[in-house]
């Protein structure tokens, strides 16, 4: 079949990149350039997000210390809330949704399935520029009159739906937030169309579903989640915007009085927003983590020199997690006065996600068990991913009991849960991917010693920041309070806050090592060959960095599964996917020259 296609198709030849800086680097339709654009967008966003979080931690530890760059020196509670809101929003949307999927997914999904580009390259470019526009809109919220919004990344009404009466930042700032999220929804929807279509229709001959690298499975399932959830968030923010600007009352109850002002609204229901938001919000947390799971599987297998343990179970559990993720949104609303029987149903469904999650965890352990482990930096971060996913996931099981959640809801316990399981785990997935694919993307290698130093500082630091939050949360420390020195039972936690703040400052500083390593290696890193990790998947069968059409005029065919490491009888301890059975007995040279 492929032979036929090749003979009637154009003669394969190397394709020249478009000339000129604008079309080549800025408005490129090449999925690799777009992937790198997404990556740098996320890198910018994460820098902003970290600075905001350090400001919060500083304020929590030293609430009375004057800061020179704040008007009047002391942070007001509403300024603290603006930090909370913008930190959460930027991290969740512009880092955890953008880097793993838009960044690495864009760059590597087409290459790993043997395609020359995404199905719709111009749509792909549009997705990126919309995401960029959304980010700019989000940042302008800082500078509009009233400043950034204060309603948190979940933007619950009535606070978010009434405008300035509910606080500074709830005027223009909240509007910018809503517009930005709306644009982001559009961008993600367009992106997901591309990912799904590409995976369905653009696979190379021989690349069956059961031969897809688990990274591709993860990006594919993530794209399906994006497709089905961002439309819902889009609908929700449209209604919210109307409530704010057109006087409707989808989410505003009748007879509401704010600051002594009666709001003349026809009568809506605030919990309607929570339903819509969390119907999106829970799948969204999986959108953030699934690509990390894919990367962890990929890297653990590579650096254990062993096939992934239970490939089929890994693929099926990804799908199961994605599916169940749509049925559990109510666990964020246990204390909203919901019917206890609904609470029970949501609780049982939530706990059932623990089953596929455990399948994944044990398969990761099974993969490294007995392997020839190589502790390179990507491997360390992949192991770190598993560690944080387990630690953070365990607290979820407690939160999923309505009776316990009644106490724990809106405390630091929840903050600990989601930072470990989503925040840190997903970031470790991103780091694993960065260290792993850097040689492929830029043709140079990052420094291993600096990478390891970065890993250990970040690993220990993240645990020091977030573990203590479980204890103060269980003891009653409420999340989103600007100042814990007001009530005596809260004052008791002050030493813990101090400890966490110091840990955060150290961990934040450790990220400078990463930035240094990254940018220095871009220019001065040692040259990387095509396959530095001796890996099996298609991206390693082409040059580093890959040519414009990914395989330099060659149309790869796939003969085997993605994780054939240490196969008995083979000439080397890994067999690339494009090696035919005869070639695999003779060594891997054939694959490198593209047969």
């Amino acid at each position: 079949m492929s032979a036929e296609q090749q003979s009637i198709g154009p003669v394969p030849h190397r394709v020249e990149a478009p000339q000129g800086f604008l079309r080549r680097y800025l408005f490129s339709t090449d999925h690799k350039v777009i992937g790198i654009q997404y990556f740098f967008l996320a890198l910018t966003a994460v820098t902003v997000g970290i600075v905001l979080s350090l400001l919060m931690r500083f304020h929590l530890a030293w609430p009375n210390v004057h800061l020179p760059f704040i008007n009047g020196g002391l942070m007001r509670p509403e300024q603290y809330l603006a930090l909370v809101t913008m930190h959460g929003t930027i991290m969740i949307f512009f880092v955890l949704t953008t880097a793993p999927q838009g960044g690495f997914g864009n760059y590597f999904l087409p290459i790993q399935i043997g395609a020359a580009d995404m199905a719709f390259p111009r749509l792909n470019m549009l997705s990126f520029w919309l995401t960029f526009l959304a980010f700019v809109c989000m940042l302008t919220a800082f500078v509009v009159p009233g400043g950034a919004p204060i309603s948190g990344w979940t933007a619950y009404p009535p606070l978010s739906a009434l405008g300035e009466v509910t606080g500074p930042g709830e005027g223009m700032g909240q509007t910018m937030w809503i517009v930005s999220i709306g644009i982001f929804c559009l961008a993600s929807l367009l992106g997901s169309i591309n990912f799904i279509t590409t995976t369905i229709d653009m696979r190379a001959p021989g690349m069956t579903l059961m031969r897809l690298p688990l990274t591709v499975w993860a990006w594919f399932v993530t794209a399906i989640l994006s497709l089905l959830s961002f439309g819902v968030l889009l609908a929700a923010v449209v209604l919210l915007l109307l409530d704010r600007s057109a006087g409707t009352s989808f989410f505003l109850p009748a007879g509401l009085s704010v600051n002594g002002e009666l709001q003349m609204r026809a009568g809506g229901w605030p919990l309607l927003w929570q339903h819509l938001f969390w119907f999106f919000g829970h799948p969204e947390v999986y959108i953030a983590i699934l690509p990390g799971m894919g990367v962890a599987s990929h890297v653990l297998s590579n650096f254990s020199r062993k096939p992934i343990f239970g490939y089929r179970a890994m693929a099926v559990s990804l799908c199961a997690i994605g599916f169940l993720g749509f049925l559990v949104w109510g666990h964020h609303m246990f204390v909203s006065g919901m019917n206890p029987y609904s609470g029970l149903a949501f609780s049982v469904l939530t706990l059932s996600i623990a089953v596929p999650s455990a399948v994944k965890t044990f398969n990761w352990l099974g993969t490294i068990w007995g392997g020839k482990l190589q502790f390179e930096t990507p491997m360390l971060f992949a192991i770190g991913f598993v560690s944080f996913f387990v630690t953070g996931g365990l607290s979820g099981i407690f939160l999923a009991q309505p009776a316990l959640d009644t106490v724990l809801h809106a405390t630091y316990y929840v903050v600990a849960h989601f930072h470990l399981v989503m925040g840190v785990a997903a970031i470790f997935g991103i780091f694993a991917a960065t260290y792993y694919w850097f040689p492929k993307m830029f043709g140079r290698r990052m420094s291993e010693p600096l990478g390891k130093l970065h890993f250990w500082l970040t690993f220990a630091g993240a645990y020091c920041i977030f573990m203590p939050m479980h204890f103060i949360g269980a003891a009653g420390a409420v999340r989103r309070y600007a100042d814990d020195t007001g009530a005596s039972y809260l004052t008791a936690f002050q030493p813990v806050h101090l400890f966490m703040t110091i840990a955060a400052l150290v961990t934040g500083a450790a990220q400078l090592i990463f930035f240094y390593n990254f940018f220095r290696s871009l220019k001065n890193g040692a040259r990387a060959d095509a396959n530095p990790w001796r890996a099996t998947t298609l991206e390693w069968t082409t040059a580093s960095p890959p040519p414009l059409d990914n395989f330099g005029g060659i149309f790869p065919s796939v003969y085997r599964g993605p994780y054939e490491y240490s196969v008995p009888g083979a000439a080397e301890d890994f067999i690339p996917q494009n090696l035919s059975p005869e070639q695999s007995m003779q060594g891997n040279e054939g694959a490198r020259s593209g047969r």
Partner: protein
Amino acid sequence: MAASAVKEPIGISGAGRGGNGRGSFGGDGRGGGSSARSVPPQRTYVTGMGVALGGILMFFMALVSALVVRKGAPSGGWQALGTAHLPWRILTLDTLILLASSATLARAHNRFRAHDDEAFSHWWGVTAILGVFFLGGQLLAWRELAAAGMYLATNPSSSFFYVLTAAHGLHLLGGIVGLLAVAFYKTRRLSRGTAISVASLYWHFMDGIWLCLFLVLLAGNR
């Protein structure tokens, strides 16, 4: 032995040309130069539209379930527009217009397949005109509702009425633009047959969405 822990995708004996991924690229004999590298097979456009409709469906499902949930919300206060206010005559007529447009579109598609270009253009054009009539009808419905003192912010049910019809109307407007684009604008990447299939898929789908919205609006405002 490590490798024996897993059987599925590994092992030299089991590997062969085996199943096929569906995909390939560049192989349909079109183009050359820089476009050769990424001219995708025509079916990707159909797949892409199918996927996009999944996202659009979720958007409308969100709005509709919001209406249903709001109507049954414990806070009460849902005031149905009732037959007195709901412009159901116009809406019924509009529904018939849209159904007719799906029929004319199917006819056009059929004529295209029969290589009868003239008849194709005729029915394709009729479809677009019916689409414009539909939108005109929706505007009339809005005016009737406004004349009865029911505006966007008057009460929850009027709000939902305007939002649902506007959301659908915008999507249909996009469909009309699509029909015109297919009629007047040619690209190298997209064959005419594919463009017609993709546009038809979208149009019939919007027709179906409207039927559902119509029923929801009727049921929600009784």
